[in-house]
C-alpha cells in the first residue's frame, strides 16, 4: 500500500488485509478469496490438488495471521486459564504449547484453540473465532489481563515433510531440535521470529510468529529457501483436506459455538466430539466440569467418529442410516473427503448412541450430480478410529531433510 493513503473505511471494505496479503494476491491465480475472522484470505491459489500434495510431499506456506490471538498475563493467569479450559494448564511448562477446548456451564463446547506458555505468568491463546466477551467475563475474580493482540503479530504456517529443511536453510539454526508442541525463539536476518512446532495438517510442520513489518521479507526469504523443495502457498481448501485426514475439527463445520446456537440441542460437549482426552477431571474446577461429569455418568448420547465410506464419492452432508433401506436416521456427516494420501473415502460424522461403536456398519445417503442428473447412493460405511493419517515424521526429532 502506498504511504499516506488511509485504508478505505470499513463500510466500503469490511475485510482487512494481512501483512502477507500483497504476496498472496500476486500468487492467487484463481481469485478465490474467503473471509476469515475479519480478514480476506486465500481459498485456492492455483489448484487444490497441487496445494494439497505440497502439504504431504514438500513445504507449504499458509497465512495464519487472522487467527485471533490473545495475550493473557498476570499473577492469576495460570488459575484463570485452568478454570477456562478443560486441560490442566498447571502442567504446561513455559516454552510449550497445548491444544485446548473450553466449554460453557452446560459443558458444551465454545471453541478450541492453542495455548502458548510464554512465561511463568504470560500466555498466548489462539482461536479461530473471537472470544473476548467470554474471556473477559471469565476473568471476574482473577488478577489477570486479557488483550487481543491479533494485529500485532503476523503468523505463517510452514508445513510439510521438507519444512524443517526449508526453515534451516531460511536461517533458523537449531530449529530441528524443536519437539512437537515446543516453542523456540530465533533470529533470522535480524528478524526475531518465534517458532512453534504446531499445525493443522497432521504432518511435520511449524508455525512462525513475527512482527507484521517483517512479514513480507520473511515470506520472500522462505519462498527462496524452499524453491528447490517445491515450496508453495496454499489456501484454506487444501488445508481443509489435510485437517480432515488428521481428524481435526473445524468450528462451524464440525461443531457450533454453544453460546451461539439458536436452536435447542445443537450444542456439543467435548466428550461427544471425541475430545474426551482433553478433559482432565482430576484438576481443580473448570467451566462445565459438573455438567461433563454428569454427562459421563449418564453416558454419551452421540459421538463424533471417523467413517470409512465405500466408493469414492465424498459423503458431503450425508444423512446416516442404520440400515440400507434408510429408515432409521442415526446421524450425519460433518466433514467428508476422498483422501488422496490414504486412498480411502473418509468422513467425520456425528452419530447417535449406540451406533458409534468402532466397526459399526452404517449407510451414508449420498447425492451425486452426474451431468446435471441427480443420483442417490446408499454407501456402506464403517465407524473407524481417527486420525486417518498420522505419519511418523510428524513427531520425529530431528526431522529428516526430505
Amino acid at each position: 500500500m502506498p504511504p499516506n493513503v488511509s485504508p478505505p473505511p470499513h463500510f466500503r471494505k469490511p475485510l482487512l488485509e494481512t501483512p502477507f496479503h500483497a504476496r498472496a494476491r500476486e500468487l492467487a491465480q484463481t481469485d478465490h478469496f474467503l473471509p476469515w475472522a475479519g480478514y480476506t484470505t486465500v481459498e485456492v491459489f492455483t489448484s487444490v490438488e497441487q496445494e494439497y500434495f505440497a502439504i504431504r510431499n514438500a513445504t507449504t506456506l499458509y497465512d495464519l495471521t487472522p487467527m485471533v490471538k490473545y495475550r493473557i498475563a498476570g499473577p492469576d493467569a495460570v488459575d484463570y486459564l485452568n478454570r477456562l479450559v478443560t486441560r490442566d494448564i498447571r502442567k504446561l511448562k513455559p516454552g510449550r504449547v497445548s491444544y485446548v477446548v473450553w466449554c460453557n456451564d452446560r459443558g458444551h463446547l465454545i471453541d478450541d484453540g492453542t495455548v502458548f506458555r510464554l512465561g511463568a505468568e504470560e500466555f498466548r491463546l489462539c482461536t479461530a473465532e473471537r472470544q473476548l466477551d467470554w474471556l473477559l467475563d471469565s476473568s471476574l475474580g482473577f488478577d489477570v489481563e486479557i488483550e487481543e493482540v491479533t494485529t500485532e503479530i503476523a503468523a505463517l504456517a510452514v508445513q510439510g515433510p521438507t519444512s524443517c529443511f526449508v526453515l534451516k536453510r531460511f536461517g533458523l539454526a537449531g530449529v530441528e531440535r524443536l519437539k512437537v508442541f515446543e516453542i523456540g525463539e530465533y533470529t533470522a536476518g535480524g528478524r526475531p521470529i518465534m517458532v512453534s512446532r504446531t499445525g493443522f495438517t497432521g504432518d511435520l510442520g511449524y508455525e512462525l510468529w513475527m512482527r507484521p513489518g517483517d512479514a513480507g521479507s520473511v515470506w520472500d526469504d522462505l519462498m527462496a529457501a524452499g524453491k528447490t523443495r517445491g515450496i508453495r502457498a496454499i489456501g484454506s481448501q487444501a488445508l481443509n483436506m489435510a485437517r480432515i485426514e488428521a481428524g481435526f475439527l473445524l468450528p462451524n463445520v464440525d461443531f457450533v459455538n454453544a453460546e451461539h446456537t439458536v436452536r435447542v440441542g445443537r450444542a456439543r460437549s467435548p466428550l461427544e466430539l471425541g475430545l474426551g482426552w482433553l478433559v482432565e477431571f482430576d484438576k481443580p474446577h473448570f467451566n462445565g466440569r459438573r455438567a461433563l461429569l454428569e454427562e459421563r455418568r449418564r453416558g454419551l448420547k452421540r459421538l463424533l467418529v471417523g467413517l470409512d465410506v465405500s466408493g469414492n464419492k465424498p459423503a458431503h452432508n450425508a444423512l446416516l442410516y442404520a440400515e440400507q433401506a434408510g429408515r432409521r436416521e442415526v446421524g450425519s456427516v460433518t466433514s467428508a473427503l476422498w483422501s488422496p494420501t490414504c486412498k480411502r473415502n473418509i468422513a467425520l460424522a456425528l452419530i447417535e448412541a449406540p451406533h458409534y461403536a468402532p466397526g459399526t456398519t452404517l449407510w451414508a445417503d449420498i447425492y451425486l450430480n452426474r451431468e446435471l442428473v441427480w443420483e442417490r447412493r446408499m454407501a456402506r460405511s464403517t465407524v473407524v478410529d481417527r486420525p486417518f493419517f498420522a505419519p511418523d515424521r510428524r513427531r520425529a526429532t530431528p526431522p529428516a531433510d526430505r
Partner: protein
Amino acid sequence: MSDAGSSAATRRLDCIVIGGGHNGLVCATYLARAGRSVLVLEAAGRVGGAAVTREFAPGYRVSAGAHLLHLMPRALMDELGLAGQGFTYAGRDLPTTAIAAGLAPLPIGAPGQAALQAVSPRDAAAYPAFSARLRRFAVALYPLLDSIPPRLGSDAWTDRIALLKLGWRIRTLGRREMRELLRIIGMNAYDLIADELETPRLQGALGFDAVLGTNFGPRAPGTVLTLLTRLAAESAAGSSPLAQPRGGLGALSEALAKAAVAAGATVRTGTRVARIRVQADRAVGVVLDSGESIDAGTVISNADAKSTFFKLLGTRHLDTGFVRKVDHLRSRGLAAKLHLALDRLPSFPGLPIAALGGRLLIAPSLDYIERAWDHSKYGECSSAPTLEITLPTVNDPSLAPAGRHVLSAIVQYVPYQPAAGWAAERARYTDVVLATLEAHAPGLRSTVTATEFLTPADLEREFGMSGGHWHHGDLAFDQFYMVRPVPGAAQYRTPVTGLYLCGASCHPGGGVMGLAGRNAARAVLRKAA
C-alpha cells in the same frame, strides 16, 4: 487446596452458618432442631446483621437497619418459641399515618375509615373492598413465600408438584379472582392504585409500600408484585402486623440467637469468615480471618449472593455463565437511614399523640414518589424524598434518656453512589431530609441534638450487604422466585455441593421475615434426606 492447621475439633460439624443475621439464626435453629450440629459465625460483635439495636449518640439507641417488625410470620415466631427467649413487644398493631404538609394527617387502614370518608366518600367505599381483594391475593400467594421455589425443566417430581401446586393455588381463588390476579400481578402500582382510588395521600401510602426497598418508582411494571409480596408476608404476620420489639430489632435478633442456642446450635460473634474452603468441588468448611480453619459437612451463607460467591467462595469454583449472572444481579442500594436524637417529642400538626408511636409516611402522592425516584435514576438524591418515620421512644422509652426521643427514618431514594460523591453530598442531603421533616413537623430541627445519616454505602460497610441494598438485591420480576438471586441458586443450593444460601438475596427476599432462613434449612435437610 491446602489448608494447614485445621481445627482440632473432636467431631466434625454438620453445618456452619456464615452470618448471624435473622435468616442465618432462623436457619441454624431449624437445622439444630433436626439434629444437626450447627455453628453460627458472626463477624460483628453481636448477632442480628441489619436487625440490630445500637447506640448512635450517647444514651440514644436505635434499630440501625430495619426499624419495624411486620413481615415475620406469627407461626414462625411461635415455632421458634421467641416468647420464651425473653422477646416482648413495645408496641403492636401500630397504626400507619400518611402525613402531608398543609393537610390533615390521614390514618391508613381500618382505623382511618372515618377520616377517609371525610376526604373522599368514594375512596371510603372503594378502599375496604380493594384492600380485602389484595389481601385475598396475598393470602393465596403466601405459601409461595414459605416454600422452596421449583426448578424449571427439571424432571424431579418435587419440582413438578411444586409447579402444579402453584397453579392450583391460583385456580382455587375462583375464576374471576384468578383472572384479576393474573392481570394485576404484572402491573405497576401507580395504575392499579389510581384505577381504584383517588385520594393522593392514600395512593401515596399504598404506593410507598409497593416500592420500599425496590429500585423502581410506582410507575414501573412489577411494583404490584412487590406490593403483593409484602402483603403476603404481612398476611402471615397478623391482621395488624406492624410491631416494635422492646429493645429494638436487636432484641429480636438476640431472642433468635437464644432460640438457636436452645436448639443446640453454637453462636460465635466477633468471628469473621475469610473464605469458604472447597475440596474436590465441595464446600468443606471455612477459614476465619484469624487463620483458624473449621470443617463442616455443609456451609450455609447468610451473606448476600455477591459477597458469598465473589468474596467468600471465589469465582474459580464456579462456571463463567453463573458468575456472569451473579455479576448482573442488581443490588445497588436505594434507601438511607436517618437517626435523630431529639430533646423532646416532635409535633406533627394535627397528628394525635397515639399516632406518633406508629409509622408515619411522607409519600403524599404517587407522583411525589415517582419524582423522588426520577432523581435517583441519574445518581442524584431526591430533592423531596419519601420517608418512613418511626419514633421508637414513644413505645419504648428505654432507648433514650428520660424525656428524650429518637427519630428513625428510612429515606428513599438515595443512590448508592451519587454522581458528586458522598463526601460532597452527605451534609447537603442530610439537610434536604431534615428540611423535609421540618416542613411536616415545624420546630423539629431545633430539637435535634445528634444526627446520624447512613447512606447505602454506609449500610454496605456496617452490615456487609453488597451495594447497601436493603433486600440484598432488587425485588423485581426478573429477580424473583425461581430466578432469585440467580438461576442455578434459587433453590438455596449453589453449584458447589455442600454450599447453600439462606439470606435475603434468596427467595422471598428481604425485610425481617425469616422465611429465606427456614426455606434454606428445609433445602439442606431435603438434600440430606
